[in-house]
């Protein structure tokens, strides 16, 4: 019997992978296609806040309630992606008491646990808070790693039989008799893992239903079937600091505004953000004022940020949507809720449903509602299990501890590997091979890099998002070539070199917004290592012309060398001189 409905999900962000997992668990045949890496879109460029809902407790209580419910669920099913940092809403003297009270009431109304702290209590918890703050409210905000979260969802989907294709762009929707019946996909390098240098291919994938989870690009995708979905993309900046100045999420307790939150994430603290409508989600200005604003505004909450070192900045675009004719002017007023658009009902175009808006924190709920909708359509009875069933890596609460003991992982390196890998720690680190550290800043070992390569192919940016290698202080200066070395010999030198060039350029892109002070010095050292010593900028292997090697110094003549050897017995270079050697 072959009547399992086939669903094609377009988009490998949190929404798409969440849907793929849920649908696969409920027995759909699932194919997920993503034009870049997993997390290539907004999901890879967000702030990392596991919302308690506190930020919406005054302005958008429905979103706030969804957030706190999902927050509690993700702590259970995605333990290895979540850090329970807690959060504070901090009131400065210039922030109104009225808003503070509204916040407190809103939190209570939405059942978000809230505790009031005096200034002294808040500062005891976070000593770098400004001395002149008034007070604070404590809420269960957390930090979430979007990369690990998406990889774990995709892996779970695969475990339930889904096909996941990255570097595969939907280049057309197949429409027959007014109905959407599938997608035309252009694979960058054949299907399966991404491998450099493998020819691309076009494939038509037929489906019983297409799910458009293309985030800020949902409009573009819908347009391929002449459907109008007006997404209002809005950009925001995030600035990464070199150390974690705070261990708690710090929010400013005032109505919506730019630069009002600091989220600790792994070894860093991330400042954010702005909210500016843009016309093209892929092409928008990344502006200096935005970075300056982060540092100046958030310095009012955490003064040492003013003099601290930032390592890079990055931007993301929110896939905001509002129903036609709402006509909101200011993007900060557009709702953070999500929308499910069945194009049969809405546009008389059966075969596709679009899901747009929302937040990463609510990705699971979005997926649940969408798959409920599909289940109803196709008469599938299976209930959603994603709220109970842990993600791969989070299955076993004791697994991390057990694995850490088993591998004697008490060093900071082992500890951090285990935090990243969760219950997969044993599988990945159980190796008899030497396991040196490849990325020193983030303490990522060879076994983890190899594991990521096995999962994702020769693309080092995919390895990066799985492992955090090259995401620390040096931004790949000291480790990007080491990562490329790990590709060999499974991939050839040429592929490794191309992968290195791509990673290096990607790392450069974000650093450009942090180039002053120490980070500029770091960039110069990186430039010296890669251009001056390694000559990667003028690599003769990368040019067509062959070099006239004969014109250059070939070294002291072979003859001279032989004589020296014979006469001196051992020394070939004049022998030992003092203790300094050469």
């Amino acid at each position, binding site marked *: 019997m072959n009547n399992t409905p086939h669903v094609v999900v377009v988009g490998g962000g949190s929404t798409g992978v969440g849907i793929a997992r849920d649908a696969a668990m409920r027995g759909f045949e699932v194919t997920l296609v993503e034009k870049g890496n997993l997390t290539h879109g907004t999901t890879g460029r967000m702030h990392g806040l596991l919302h308690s809902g506190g930020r919406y407790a005054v302005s958008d209580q429905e979103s706030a309630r969804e957030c706190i419910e999902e927050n509690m669920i993700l702590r259970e099913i995605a333990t290895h992606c979540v850090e329970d940092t807690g959060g504070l809403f901090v009131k400065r003297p210039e922030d109104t008491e009225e808003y503070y009270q509204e916040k407190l009431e809103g939190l209570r109304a939405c059942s978000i646990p809230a505790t009031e702290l005096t200034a002294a209590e808040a500062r005891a918890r976070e000593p770098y808070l400004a001395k002149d703050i008034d007070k604070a409210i404590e809420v269960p905000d957390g930090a979430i790693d979007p990369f690990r979260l998406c990889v774990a969802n995709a892996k779970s989907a695969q475990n339930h039989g889904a096909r996941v294709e990255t570097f595969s762009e939907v280049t057309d929707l197949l429409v027959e008799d007014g109905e959407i019946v599938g997608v035309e996909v252009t694979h960058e390098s054949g299907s399966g893992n991404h491998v450099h240098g493998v020819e691309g291919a076009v494939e038509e994938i037929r489906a019983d239903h297409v799910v458009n989870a293309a985030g800020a690009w949902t409009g573009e995708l819908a347009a391929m079937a002449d459907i109008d979905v007006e997404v209002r993309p809005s950009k925001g900046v995030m600035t990464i600091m070199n150390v974690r100045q705070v261990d708690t999420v710090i929010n400013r307790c005032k109505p919506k505004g730019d630069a009002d939150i600091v989220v600790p994430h792994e070894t860093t603290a991330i400042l954010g953000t702005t909210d500016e409508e843009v016309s093209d989600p892929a092409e928008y200005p990344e502006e200096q004022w935005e970075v300056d604003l982060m540092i100046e505004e958030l310095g009012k909450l955490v003064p040492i940020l003013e003099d601290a070192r930032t390592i890079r900045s990055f931007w993301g675009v929110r896939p905001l949507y509002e129903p036609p004719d709402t006509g909101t002017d200011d993007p900060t007023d557009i709702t953070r809720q999500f929308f499910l658009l069945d194009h049969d009902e809405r546009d008389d175009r059966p075969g596709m449903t679009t899901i747009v808006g929302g937040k990463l924190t609510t990705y699971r709920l979005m997926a649940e509602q969408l798959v409920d909708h599909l289940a109803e359509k196709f008469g599938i009875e299976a209930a959603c299990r994603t709220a109970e069933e842990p993600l791969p890596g989070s299955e076993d609460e004791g697994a991390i501890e057990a694995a850490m003991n088993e591998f004697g992982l008490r060093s900071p*390196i082992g500890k951090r590997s285990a935090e990243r890998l969760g219950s997969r720690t044993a599988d990945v680190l159980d190796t008899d*091979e*030497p396991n*040196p*550290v*490849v990325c020193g800043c983030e303490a990522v070992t060879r076994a983890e890099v190899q594991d990521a390569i096995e999962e994702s192919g020769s693309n080092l940016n995919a390895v990066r998002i799985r492992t955090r290698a090259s995401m620390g202080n040096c931004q790949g200066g*000291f480790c990007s*070539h*080491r990562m490329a070395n790990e590709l*060999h*010999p499974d991939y*050839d*030198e*040429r592929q490794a*070199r191309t992968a290195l060039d791509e990673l290096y350029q990607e790392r*450069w892109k974000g650093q*450009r917004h942090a*180039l*002053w002070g120490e980070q*500029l*010095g*770091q*960039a*110069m*050292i990186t*430039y*010296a*290592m*890669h*251009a*001056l*010593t*390694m*000559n*990667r*900028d*003028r*690599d*003769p*292997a990368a*040019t067509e012309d*062959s*070099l006239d*090697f004969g014109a*250059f*110094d*070939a*070294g002291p003549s*072979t003859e001279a*060398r032989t004589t020296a050897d014979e006469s001196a*017995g*051992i020394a*070939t*270079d*004049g*022998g*030992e001189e003092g203790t*300094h*050697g*050469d």
Partner: protein
Amino acid sequence: MAIDSDVLVIGGGIAGISSALAARQAGADVRLVSEAETTLHHASGLLDVLGYHPNAAGEGPVVDPFDAIADLPDSHPYAIVGESAVRDGLALLDDALGEAYQGSYTDANALVPTHGGTVKPTARYPASVAAGLASDDREMVLVDFERLTGFDAGVAADHLAAAGIPADTSAATVEFPIVVRDDAKVTRYAHLLDENPTVTVEGRERRVRAALADAIEPHVGDAERVGFPAVLGVDHPAEIRAELQDRLDAAIFEVPMGPPSVPGLRLEDRLYAALDDAGGRIEAGGGPIVGFDATEGTISEVYLDRSGSPIPYAADQYVLATGDVAGGGIDSDREGVTEPIFGCHVPHPTDRYEWFDEAAFGDHDFAEFGVVIDEMLRPVAETGDPEFSNLRAAGAVIGGYDYPAEKSASGVSIATGYAAGRQAAREA
């Protein structure tokens, strides 16, 4: 009372040492003060003069760097000091380094394989690198160690082949005879080879060097030379190479690597010893120079910050050799770029987003940040007048050239260091 000398050199990188050596050679009483460790241990240990013509993107490497100097723009530091200062400076260094460095017998650049696997042009190279030059057509086998992630022999061998070098290349990976920690530094390997302790290999007592040679031997085949990551000893490199050469019956060479760099450490040791022998006084690690006094455009003393207390140093002549944005000689914040000790003029675009190029290996303004000098190597103000009558600059603190792109770092440091040191001594 201030600590006194004829010439005070600030900065202990290759520019500072070259200045101090030149000033000593010219008979001055010299003191060198440097904040912390030098940047030499970051550097590959190669001494480049000019590998590529600036503004000639796409062109291959320069064969004769001395020839190429004539074509440089007038503002380039080489054009300011002239070819003869480049040659004289190098001669001074050749003298200080003796047999430990090679390349002085020809004006032609050498193409050296470095750890990424491709070749780069340089003018002087450590003796340990000599047998590895790319223009030598003898077959080579490259060796790496399991736990050393910075050098992958297989990648390097294939990369060299892709660059078209005239020699056949192959690769072998071996386990270092003593199991070092998974995250051991390169210096750990170097020290083990220096000390050469006994290990037990398959029931046999062997010294580390011998055991290493045993492990490599099966991979050598017809190869006439064997290349290693640059870890062959800090203290006894020649002895280690000679022993391996004997045991493997092949020439031995090192492939220069990134930081921390063993050849860089050896170069640092050598140069400091040479300066010490020449009678220069060295104070490295005591703290940074943070301020100065001057009257009528002449510096009377500078202040070293020793854990918060200012220590005055006075001299007739000063050489500023504090490096670029990487070395600490040039500072920047979101507002602009400065020379932090004397506040010398550093030209730079006011818009921070013009400091760099979009492409990682593009034309970066920041690489050229530094002071502007006159023909006497004195930093000048925006007006073109010298900032101080008795202050000269040397090395990467001078702006206007992109040394990673042109591969000219040490050469400019040596040539300007030499010129600044000599002129300072003459006027002291």
